[in-house]
């Protein structure tokens, strides 16, 4: 039980993470999916940063006092990189959403799948017709 009490922060972060996860897999709207992905991503960052925290420590900017405890800078560096890469990939995602809407007129997953299936069916019919006529 003592070990469980020590990890409360991780449990809270996991709860948050799962909300984002649910938004990504359950919601059909693509913009909503991207927002869910952002939530998911941010809570992963929180999990990493939580691991670098040191009790009674301070931010890893040196104070000159040798007694000071510092938080672990390594997760901070990794997450710093991840945030900027995250916004770059988010931008690509939004760009693709815009193009999908321009081509199909919808950004809802289920409608999009229906339209693509209908298109595929048409294509295969055309192919069959061509082969038969030939």
């Amino acid at each position, binding site marked *: 039980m003592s070990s469980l009490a020590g990890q409360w922060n991780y449990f809270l972060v996991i709860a948050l993470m799962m909300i984002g996860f649910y938004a990504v897999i359950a919601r059909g709207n693509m913009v909503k999916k991207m927002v869910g992905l952002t939530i998911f991503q941010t809570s992963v960052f929180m999990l990493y940063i939580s691991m670098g925290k040191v009790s009674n420590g301070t*931010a890893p*900017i040196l104070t000159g006092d040798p007694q000071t405890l510092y938080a672990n800078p390594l997760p901070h560096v990794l997450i*710093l990189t991840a*945030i*900027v890469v995250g916004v770059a990939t988010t*931008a690509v995602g*939004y*760009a693709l959403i*815009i193009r999908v809407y*321009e081509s199909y007129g919808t950004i809802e997953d289920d409608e999009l799948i229906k339209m693509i299936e209908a298109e595929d069916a048409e294509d295969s019919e055309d192919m069959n017709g061509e082969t038969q006529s030939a």
Partner: protein
Amino acid sequence: MQDDPVIRVVSKVMIPTVMLFALYVQFHGDYGPGGGFQAGVIFASAFVLNAMIFGLNRGRHVWPANLNLLAICAGVLLYGLTGIASLFLGANYLDYDVLGATAKSGQHIGILLVEFGVGLTVASVMVALFFTFAGRLTHIRLMSKMQAHEEASPPASKTKTKAKKAGGRS
């Protein structure tokens, strides 16, 4: 949005402040929180604010697109070339010890250059992203107009072009 005096005046005060703050974050990043990424994003947001308030065309005049594309590449190149410079001075790739008179000053110079490269790339990428996203509507309009021109160009009949234009815009 530039017709609103409050927003115009406030943003004219804010834009230089944001840029100054970005430079502070860039060059004070060794001593406090901050660095290339953050400074780049803040610097870009000054341009974004300018473009949002005074329109995209004015924003393009302030920082032309071709120059911006060059800056995107220049940032990455600056980073890579810093590594190659240390390679030529007899150390490993991205080992800044040899760049200065002493190892410490070499590290200082190397980190400054590298962070500047990162800041340049991030800032210009963010500006490019904003202009691409916000300028999409105008771009579509332009493309449909071009298409109409191309279709109508051999026999230049104006009524047909106009009909095409309206169709493209709706």
